[in-house]
């Protein structure tokens, strides 16, 4: 059916989920191969939309969902949403490949991989939604499978942690819903792209707009795990099964950042700009707090989880400076962090899978035993620490350059720069600790991780290098899209 390419691509995994579920009973962890094939097909579908988006700046599909309740179901791929969709699906595909080996000893993999597919659909749906209720629907759809995957296949006190994760995010979602409903009260529409016209008709005062922006920002901040609503993240990300940590840190929390950009910043620009100092302060606190906490961790995955909090601070800072440069940097950093943190969690998973421990005090001198993992970890760490020539350097540089473009942000940006030092410190310590130094005896028999785990890591490492050398590969897609937003916020 031509003209419904996005809808079909989006729903394909939903229809395949039951098949994956049933085949899981017979095939065990080989079901993963089916899930990977499905995700690859979806990835190819969305890649094929890219040329259209480059030509026409966006591709939109609209369907009548429930006319009686005034609901439409729209999907819009543009220069901002499509790159994020692509990175999410890519990360999901790689994490699915990775799961095949990583989850081989676990049970109930049919349910695991079908939840995995639904999780992907939730995240992609959030990014493509054009209707606020539809956005909320996918927002919650993203929560449910991840909750089950943490509760069912997580480590430690998985059920308690999953409960905390659910309640935190659900309460955040309620704020989001209140923001959405307030918008509807004043503007009488749920369609995002009708908002500017109705705002310019003076239907909503700036005070109300601020309330909406704050409500939406709270909802998204919980998902992004900004300080002070971050406490669910270190637990959830460290106790989730590693492929899910990859997706939580690499993809899901980015949906929060995307929500702020897409709704608050794009459509309520004036209100957003009147609050941006508050947002910038929260961003800086998040950056530094996450970094300091990461320094204090002795658990590999917990360190990476706190590092994610810190990195979300970078992204939020880039958003809150609200200049074209900063915003492009933030969007680019979403992609770089997805690659870098996805890579690092996969490496952490490889370490756990091969050594059976995740305690930094027990891991030492593994560079000789796991050379590929060691190399991948270094690429990931250097990229996120902002070392040239890796992807993270390019995007962090753009974020801070964007900050300096606003004279009133000079102090903030200078303080924010300090956090890059902290980032470098904990990553270097992490690398040194795990891969160098004397090797304890019980790690003598450690081998390199299996191929299905190594391949996704190599692909991500390659991308981290590629985006460092050739950032225009991404920025050329994003920047014209950002220009359109910036014109809205003056």
């Amino acid at each position: 059916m031509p003209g419904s390419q996005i809808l079909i691509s989006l729903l394909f995994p939903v229809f395949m989920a039951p098949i994956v579920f049933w085949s899981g009973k017979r095939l065990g962890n080989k079901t993963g191969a089916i899930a990977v094939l499905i995700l690859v097909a979806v990835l190819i579908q969305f890649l094929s939309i890219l040329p259209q988006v480059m030509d026409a700046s966006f591709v939109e599909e609209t369907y009548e969902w429930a006319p009686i309740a005034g609901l439409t179901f729209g999907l819009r791929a543009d220069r901002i949403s499509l790159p994020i969709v692509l990175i999410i699906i890519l990360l999901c595909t790689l994490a699915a490949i990775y799961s095949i080996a990583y989850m081989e000893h676990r049970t109930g993999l049919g349910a695991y991989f079908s939840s995995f597919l639904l999780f992907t659909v939730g995240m992609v749906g959030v990014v493509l939604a054009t209707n606020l209720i539809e956005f909320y629907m996918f927002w919650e759809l993203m929560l449910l499978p991840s909750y089950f995957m943490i509760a069912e296949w997580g480590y430690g006190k998985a059920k308690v942690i999953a409960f905390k994760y659910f309640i935190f995010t659900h309460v955040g979602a309620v704020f989001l819903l209140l923001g959405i409903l307030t918008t509807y009260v004043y503007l009488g529409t749920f369609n995002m792209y009708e908002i500017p016209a109705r705002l310019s008709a003076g239907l909503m005062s700036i005070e109300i707009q601020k309330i909406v922006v704050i409500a939406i920002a709270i909802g998204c901040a919980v998902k992004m795990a900004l300080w002070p609503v971050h406490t669910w993240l270190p637990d959830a990300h460290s106790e989730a099964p590693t492929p899910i940590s990859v997706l939580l840190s690499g993809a899901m929390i980015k949906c929060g950042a995307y929500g702020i950009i897409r709704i608050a910043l794009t459509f309520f620009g004036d209100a957003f700009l009147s609050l941006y100092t508050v947002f910038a302060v929260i961003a800086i606190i998040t950056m530094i707090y996450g970094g300091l906490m990461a320094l204090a961790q002795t658990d590999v995955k917990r360190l990476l989880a706190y590092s994610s909090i810190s990195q979300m601070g970078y992204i939020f800072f880039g958003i809150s400076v609200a200049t074209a440069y900063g915003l492009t940097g933030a969007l680019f950093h979403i992609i770089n962090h997805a690659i870098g943190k996805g890579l690092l969690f996969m490496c952490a998973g490889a370490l756990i899978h091969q050594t059976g421990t995740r305690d930094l005090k027990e891991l030492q001198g593994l560079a000789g035993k796991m050379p590929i993992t060691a190399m991948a970890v270094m690429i990931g760490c250097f990229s996120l620490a902002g070392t040239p020539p890796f992807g993270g350097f390019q995007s962090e540089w753009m974020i801070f350059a964007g900050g300096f473009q606003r004279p009133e942000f000079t102090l903030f940006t200078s303080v924010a720069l300090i956090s890059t030092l902290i980032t470098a410190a904990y990553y270097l310590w992490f690398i040194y600790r795990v891969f160098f130094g004397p090797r304890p005896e019980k790690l003598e028999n450690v081998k390199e991780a299996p191929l299905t785990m190594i391949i996704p890591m190599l692909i991500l490492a390659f991308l981290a290098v590629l985006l460092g050398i050739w950032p225009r590969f991404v920025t050329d897609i994003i920047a014209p899209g950002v220009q359109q937003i910036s014109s809205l916020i003056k």
Partner: protein
Amino acid sequence: MFTAVLDSLLFFMVTIPVVGLVARKVGVRKILDGYAILGLILTSYYLYELYFEVLRNGIVIVKYSSVILTPTVSLEIDMFSVFMVFVYIGLALLVAIYSIRYMEHDTGLTWYYTLLFGLLISMVGATFAGDFFILFIFWQFLCITVTSLVAFRRRRWAPIEASIKYFIIAEVGTASLLYAMSLLYGMTGTLNFAQLATSMRQVSPNPWVYLTIALIIVGFGVEGTIVPFHTWLPDAHPEAPSSISALLSGALVKVGIYCICRVLFLLFLPAQIHWNVVLAIFAVITMTLGNIMALLQDDIKRLFAYSTIAQVGYILIGVAVATQYGVMGALFHIFNDAMMKGLAFMCAGAFIYRTQTRDLKELSGIGRSMPVTGAALLIALLSLLGFPPLAGFVSKYILFTSAIEANMPLLAIAGVLNSAFSAAYYLRMIQILILAQPNGRIAEVKEAPVSMLIPMCAMAFIVVLLGIWPEPIASFANNAAGALLDAPSYIRHAA
């Protein structure tokens, strides 16, 4: 005589004891089950015909005369009544299929089915009534059948106590109703709804009118479990057989709501006498109390009873809003709640059938031993929680937006906050029943029998389907809401 739907129910109620006797003599119990299901299928067919008749004519009227009554309109059926009866009969059919296995260890199956049909007759009769007097007769019949059904497992004391409690509270409600009726009769000299409406709409607000409204809300509010008239429900639910709990929550409670809507919308203009503000306050109290109390329960059926009370609160939002969109949301939620809560009780019943316990902690991890039931319960709970894209989300969304459109944003905010708060106990149930690892006895429990799974899977499917494609039921509910608000047409037809 009383429309084919009621006649067919009456016929089956009267003949079930005979068939029961034959079945006992022959020694094949299934004859009785089959006969009851046949009765419900036949009734559904008549309802289907009635639906088209109403669609053609707008309103169907049945006149009835006797020695004591002058010829008068006794039944007046519009789309609103048809919608409600559709909910009752649909749920009852699923419950009857479920009952085949669920009730197999019980004695007195003949009684059970007779009372089930009696309950349906009283509910359908109250819904079709075009006259307060007729309504009252069916209402009393309703109280008696529910009292007997709650006490169905009469070998233990608890069901009898619950049934006596219900009976006393319900009779207080009925007395209040009778008082309201006599006031109305005193003011207008008639009990016919259409004539009452013609007269009452001209009466300017005075203390007697307010007293009447208060008495009506109390009278029907007992059956509708509006807080603070709800106290019988949490006792009655755990003690009744689960199939009956499903009907009580899914259908009986909705009769109370139906009667409140019918009488108040027809007799009193919300714009003139602000009864909807009172209902708005009741809505907030009802859902808040329902949700808070649900959090404290350890008995799975008691928890669902409080969850029903909370859902009534949401439904009242739509009634209080009093626009077509709001009432449509309320009706849609009535249908959804019948499905979700019916499903939840059936799942609870399946657990009880296999384990003989209702205690949440003892049932820990049972969802893993009974995966299909567990999955169905999961869908029911998520839908009750208002999780998109399930049916419960769509109707709640309509309710909340209708409150906003009608300029009652506080009502919407109360609803949203309650909805978020309710996540705590639904999630707790998911954690305990479905995610926990089963141990000991629970680990060896087998999946529920197929004939119980069939209605459960059907309902789970409906809940999912309506979330994705709400149009069919939503437009039916919209027609029904239109019929309720179109009082002039109701009055004109009866003349």
